[in-house]
């Protein structure tokens, strides 16, 4: 039987997660750290794909693992972010508060959002770019694609065989991913809320009534004293 064409062999090896650029004594890609990282990408549905199960048993296990792991991840992320919502409860009586504290609350919310964006979306990509040798644009692209759980896999941290990473690097990256996801779960209703509050404030300052602006898309922050949210 003629040997398979070298290009085909290379691509098959690449798809199976083997790095063809490596040298002869190459450890398997599936060491402990990589497996842990892989389990994380399954459960968060990021799914980079630079490493994926190639045995049938691995694939079947992956399906059932994800079936339990994805709801677990959802519950976990929501609990992580649960702390802020108690604070949001104070925003219920927002309309009755004096103007100054309304402004303060809006400012506080905006500050929180900005700081969070910096810490989650700006600083880590800078670190990754520096360590991995990417440009900042590539690092930011990686951060966005990861945190939105799209996870193309064209950029993955800690997978360059020619670099030496400190041992906690991937664990730190994993922690960043979890925190980033939890933070996203937190702020996604906050953004529209902030806009809504700003628009209400603007309307108030124009002397218009708030009664007509019971914008029901402001999610789960009911205003019991307001108009009932009707279809």
């Amino acid at each position, binding site marked *: 039987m003629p*040997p398979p064409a*070298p290009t*085909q*062999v290379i*691509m098959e*090896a*690449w798809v199976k997660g083997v790095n*063809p*650029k*490596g040298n*002869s004594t190459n450890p*398997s890609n*599936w*060491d*402990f750290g990589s*497996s*842990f990282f892989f*389990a*994380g*990408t399954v*459960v968060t*549905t*990021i*799914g980079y*794909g630079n490493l*994926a*199960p*190639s045995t049938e048993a*691995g694939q*079947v296990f*992956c399906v059932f693992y994800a079936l339990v*792991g*994805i709801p*677990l991840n*959802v*519950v976990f*992320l*929501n*609990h992580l972010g649960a702390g802020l*919502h*108690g604070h*949001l*409860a104070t925003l219920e009586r927002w309309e009755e508060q004096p103007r100054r504290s309304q402004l303060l609350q809006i400012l506080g919310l905006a500050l929180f959002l900005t700081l969070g964006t910096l810490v989650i979306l700006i600083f880590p990509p800078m670190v990754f770019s520096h360590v991995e040798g990417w440009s900042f644009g590539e690092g930011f*692209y990686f951060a966005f694609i990861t945190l939105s*759980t*799209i996870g193309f896999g064209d950029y993955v941290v800690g997978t360059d065989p020619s670099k030496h990473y400190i041992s906690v690097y991937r664990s730190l990256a994993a922690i960043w991913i979890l925190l980033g*996801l*939890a933070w*996203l*779960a937190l702020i*996604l*209703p906050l953004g529209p809320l902030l806009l809504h509050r700003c628009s209400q404030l603007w309307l108030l300052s124009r002397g218009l009534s708030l009664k007509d602006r019971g914008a*029901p*898309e402001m*999610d789960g*922050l009911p205003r019991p004293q307001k108009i*009932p*949210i*009707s*279809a």
Partner: protein
Amino acid sequence: MAPGPGLPASLALCRPAAQATPDYRAPKCAVPGTLLLLLAYLVYLALGTGVFWVLESPAARDSSARFQRDKWALLQNFTCLDGPALDSLIRGIIQAYQSGDIVLDNTTSMGRWEFMGSFFFSVSTITTIGYGNLSPRTMAARLFCIFFALVGIPLNLVVLNRLGHLMQRGMHRCARRLGGAWQDPTKARWLAGAGALLSGLLLFLLLPPLLFCHMEGWSYVESFYFAFITLSTVGFGDYVIGMDPSRRYPLWYKNTVSLWILFGMAWLALIIKLILSLLETPGRSCSCYHHSSKENFKSQSWRQNPDGEAEPHSPQPGCHPEEPMGIMQHPEPSTHVSCCGKDN
């Protein structure tokens, strides 16, 4: 179950009857729960680590060894080739593959970014599947990809939410009809739920792999694995339909698959939401969830319309009978669930 006393029925929001204060979510409820959950999460990840390690490591080592053997055999057979030149060729092949060129075909085709390929890429982006077998290389395309996803992902969630809502309403209508015929609403609901689960399973997870088997030449297990990984939006990209240059795909193929992805994701999200509601039922006071975020507009308008969506099957104290129809298609942007007491 009725909401707390004194609330107009039209509000019908999740409100645990016992809680009067807005910040009832006392720390003693949340913190041990969070730590326990963190522990469970880490244990689950460790379990996955161990199993994948055990299952995949030997196979990858074999594959790696085989590749190294073939490489050395090639170098021996063709003595004009030397190691570094071969390595640079390998790097070039990998890069070309990653940027979407077809490396095995020697015809000058348009590459993989033609119309259907780009359409499929857009689908995989806004559904957050993100296969990655094709990903933008130019910085401009990446920038566009970011903004495209920023708008597309919420749009996708809204659409999925609406689809799931329609599915659930259909299910409840069946339940009601059955309940009327049998005079037993609870059993009818369970039956309708089971029926929806089974029919969805068949339609979205068990039958389409047969199609993929046939069109792509994968085994059934591989096709099922592909189907699940796609619908759960994990989307590794190790299996992607329509990527084999040696096959001819009919025109309806990729379109049908896109439709399947859409409806299948809505169904799977519905199932996961039901699983979550079952997980959360056992008496945790913080466990009354409802979905906030922009989907809630639709879900609230639907919640006020309890036409026959009768009794709860998850008896959470004081909660609205109907679980609100948010979609949790994937963790964070979509499933913004929050403890209902906190929001009341």
